[in-house]
């Protein structure tokens, strides 16, 4: 006899169906853009219709659960993400010759939704306006989270486990509510997100209009705002943001830093005039950015890549901010720099943005807490009886959370190394020239939702040369990285499914 199922599978699938159904509304955006630019709209209409039908069908043939709990939440979030990315990949398969092959299309859409920014395209300018903007828009959709979005705007999505869903989707060790209800919290987060995006489009458009940056059309402004705020990194340009003026790049730096900071902190700054430097995580975030930038700056001068001046400063800061916030733009081909700069960038790739930001990777808060844990361990080695609660911003972090953070760190690094190993073995099997640094970079960049890697997968390169198997591995890494591994990892345990 089969043991009883402990998860409300039908209820979970029902909710997934409902969210996928509503997700089809997103396809109205490229349809509207396509009508404006006179590009073909049928790929989007078809993909939207298929998505709606699939979602409707899934909802129709399953029974809605009375209450979706934390347990079902993991399944709902994992599946919703996998299916939403799939829905977008359908429009790529229909509408873009370079993405005809399903694994390529799924890689591109997963990279978009998870705000990674790695691409298998080899000729980005060949995309039409609509497809290019849609690709950027998919990052914007994924940035703040589609479950959070659903909770914020869908009136009929009243689920008991809203909190569990948001916790699975929101990056960071602890979910910080901005209001007593999940819906209000979700709305406030999205409001800040939309507001910052609008502000960035406005500033960049003005730069284009007054002639500070001739290339910065409103279209380019929108495309880059859509990929900056979610720390995505897609760009309609072949050479990322290199062609844009220094002023535009500085604006991007500022907005990348904002996107990589905790959105709950933005709320407190706006509403309560909170001084962000009083936040421990934000302080650490800024300090790490400054130190890494300085390191890069010195190395760039030392190896005569740039001479001292604004360019050298901008190139160092831009690359560090872009990689650390896991955006993945490039204002220079950093692959051609030195080993030390590459290692520095891989290091900040593993740090990532702040908790509650749109950035990926391990997150600054976890690093701060792991650092405190290590310090406590050393202290207790000498002083066996000392009792040391660990605090963040003066608030005690409970031991269970700390254990979860340590476990996350170990799983993250484990998955990163496993990914590196698999990619290296696969490259050897398929005769691809992948160095250790390239494999480390590819694994870290996909797991951390950063974007560019090293070698041929550098910022101006493409992930296309990887074998289909390697691409599938990286799709899984991106998916797992975006949801911070645990919601997906628990699905693989027997205890999750058993009653």
């Amino acid at each position: 006899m089969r043991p009883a199922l402990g998860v409300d599978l039908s209820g979970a699938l029902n909710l997934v169906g409902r969210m996928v159904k509503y997700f089809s509304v997103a396809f109205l955006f490229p349809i509207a853009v396509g009508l404006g630019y006179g590009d073909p709209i049928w790929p989007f209409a078809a993909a939207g219709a298929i998505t709606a039908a699939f979602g409707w069908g899934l909802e129709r043939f399953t029974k809605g659960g009375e209450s979706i709990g934390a347990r079902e939440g993991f399944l709902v979030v994992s599946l919703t993400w996998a299916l939403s990315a799939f829905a977008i990949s359908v429009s790529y398969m229909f509408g873009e010759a370079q993405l005809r092959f399903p694994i390529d299309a799924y890689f591109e859409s997963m990279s978009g939704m998870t705000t990674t920014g790695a691409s298998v395209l080899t000729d980005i300018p060949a995309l039409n306006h609509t497809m290019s903007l849609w690709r950027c828009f998919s990052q914007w959709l994924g940035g703040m989270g589609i479950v959070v979005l659903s909770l914020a705007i869908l009136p009929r999505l009243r689920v008991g486990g809203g909190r569990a869903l948001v916790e699975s989707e929101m990056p960071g060790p602890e979910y910080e509510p901005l209001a007593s209800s999940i819906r209000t919290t979700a709305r406030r987060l999205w409001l800040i997100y939309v507001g910052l995006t609008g502000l960035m489009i406005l500033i960049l458009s003005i730069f284009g209009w007054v002639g500070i940056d001739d290339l910065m059309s409103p279209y380019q402004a929108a495309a880059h705002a859509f990929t900056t705020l979610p720390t995505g990194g897609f760009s309609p340009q072949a050479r990322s943001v290199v062609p844009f003026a220094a002023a535009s790049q500085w604006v991007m730096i500022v907005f990348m830093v904002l996107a990589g900071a905790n959105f709950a902190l933005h709320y407190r700054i706006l509403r309560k005039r909170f001084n962000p430097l009083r936040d421990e995580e934000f302080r650490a975030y800024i300090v790490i950015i400054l130190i890494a930038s300085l390191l890069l700056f010195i190395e760039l001068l030392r190896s005569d890549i740039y001479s001292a001046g604004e360019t050298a400063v901008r190139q160092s800061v831009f690359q560090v901010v872009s990689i650390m916030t896991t955006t993945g733009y490039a204002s220079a081909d950093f692959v051609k720099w030195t080993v030390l700069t590459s290692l520095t960038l891989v290091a900040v790739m593993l740090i990532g943005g702040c908790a509650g930001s749109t950035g990926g990777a391990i997150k600054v808060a976890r690093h701060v807490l792991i650092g405190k844990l290590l310090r406590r361990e050393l202290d207790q080695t000498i002083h066996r009886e000392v009792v040391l609660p660990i605090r963040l911003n003066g608030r005690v972090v409970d031991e269970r959370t700390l254990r979860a953070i340590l476990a996350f760190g170990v799983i993250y690094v484990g998955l990163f190394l496993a990914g590196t190993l698999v990619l290296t073995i696969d490259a050897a099997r398929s005769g691809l020239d992948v160095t250790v640094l390239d494999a480390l970079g590819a694994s870290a960049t996909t797991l951390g939702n950063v974007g560019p890697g090293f070698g041929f997968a550098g910022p101006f390169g493409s992930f296309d040369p990887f074998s289909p198997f390697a691409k599938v591995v990286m799709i899984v890494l991106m998916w797992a990285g975006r949801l911070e591994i645990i919601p997906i990892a628990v699905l693989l345990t027997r205890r999750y499914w058993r009653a």
Partner: protein
Amino acid sequence: MEGNGASRRVLQEAGIKETDLVIACTSRDEVNIVAGILSERLAPEARTIVRTQNVEYLEVWRERQLDVDFVVSSELETANAIARIVGIPAARQTDVFAEGQVLMVEFDVPIGAEPNQTIGQALRNAVIPADSKVASIIRGDRMIVPRGDEAIQPGDRVIVIGSPAAARAWSGIFAQGRVRANDVVVFGAGDTGVAIARVLLEEGTLVRVVESSPERARTVAEDLPDARVFNATAMDADFIKRENIGTADAAIFAMQSDEKNLYAATLAKIHGVALTVAVVTEPASAIVLERAGVDIVINPRMVTAEEIVRFAHDPRIRQMAMIEGDRFEILDITVREDSQFLGKPFRDLPMTGSLIGAIVRGDTAIFPHGDDMLLAGDRAIIFAEAARVRQVERAL
């Protein structure tokens, strides 16, 4: 009579309406508060004093959300008393008057103290820190009126009234090299222990707390981010050694059991702690601990009683302290216009077993000399034998 103080009927039967003063000091905070509030309602004329242990109720009262006349927290009073003692080396007890301008300090002169310009000299020749007076010398069980030909001897207990600077100077004379305690270990993280740790931390002292219950240790460590909390027992000699407890300037024992406090204090002494202070639960234990060599024994009930008596006394008296159990009192009393001592120089005032240590005129403290005079409205800070307190009150 016998009955529940929180019962209206009992209070009425006790004649609450005709009462001038109600003191609620049972061992349960909540009962005291209910009794206090009831009395305030039943007899608005009477003054009500409520004793609580928990500092929180005191805070509530200070925010005027508890309708009684006076609240005294035994935890906080005890904590303050201890903080004053560890703040002035060699001091056994310290009381503060006139918003901190005048201090009364009781010192023990070490038995092996070397004679110097102060110790062993006739008082008229001895070097006495400015702005201070020797109020009394206690030698064995005898109290000596400090006349000019008396000398402070090793082993004496000396009571001094003076400015804070003078108190520190005296402390320097008696402590002979010992400095203000900067590193204090508190054993026992009960409510009293935590209150002590809190007061010390506020003064910038380095505080270590030792607590045997793991859960309690964790809670306290969370509540006191600046203290270092250890989960260990005070009887663990290995622990005392490993953590160098012996190098602490002072150790305070605030555990529930007086026996444990005694054992732990002795152990700490063995390991070299300079000053041991124990907070006793049973008043009867005080003498035992003192005889056994604990440097200072604090009885929270005594400290609280002092605070209550201060409030309950003559309305002209702002503050008073009890010394040596209740043998002496320090009065802070405002001089009446018809006082018989007005306009007389100090050297002509009769010796009545009491001594005017300081006067507060306007906002400043004056440490009077022979030709100073008392004026109406002066606040006089007076050291008096308990038996003479009434007499002094009448005379002024």
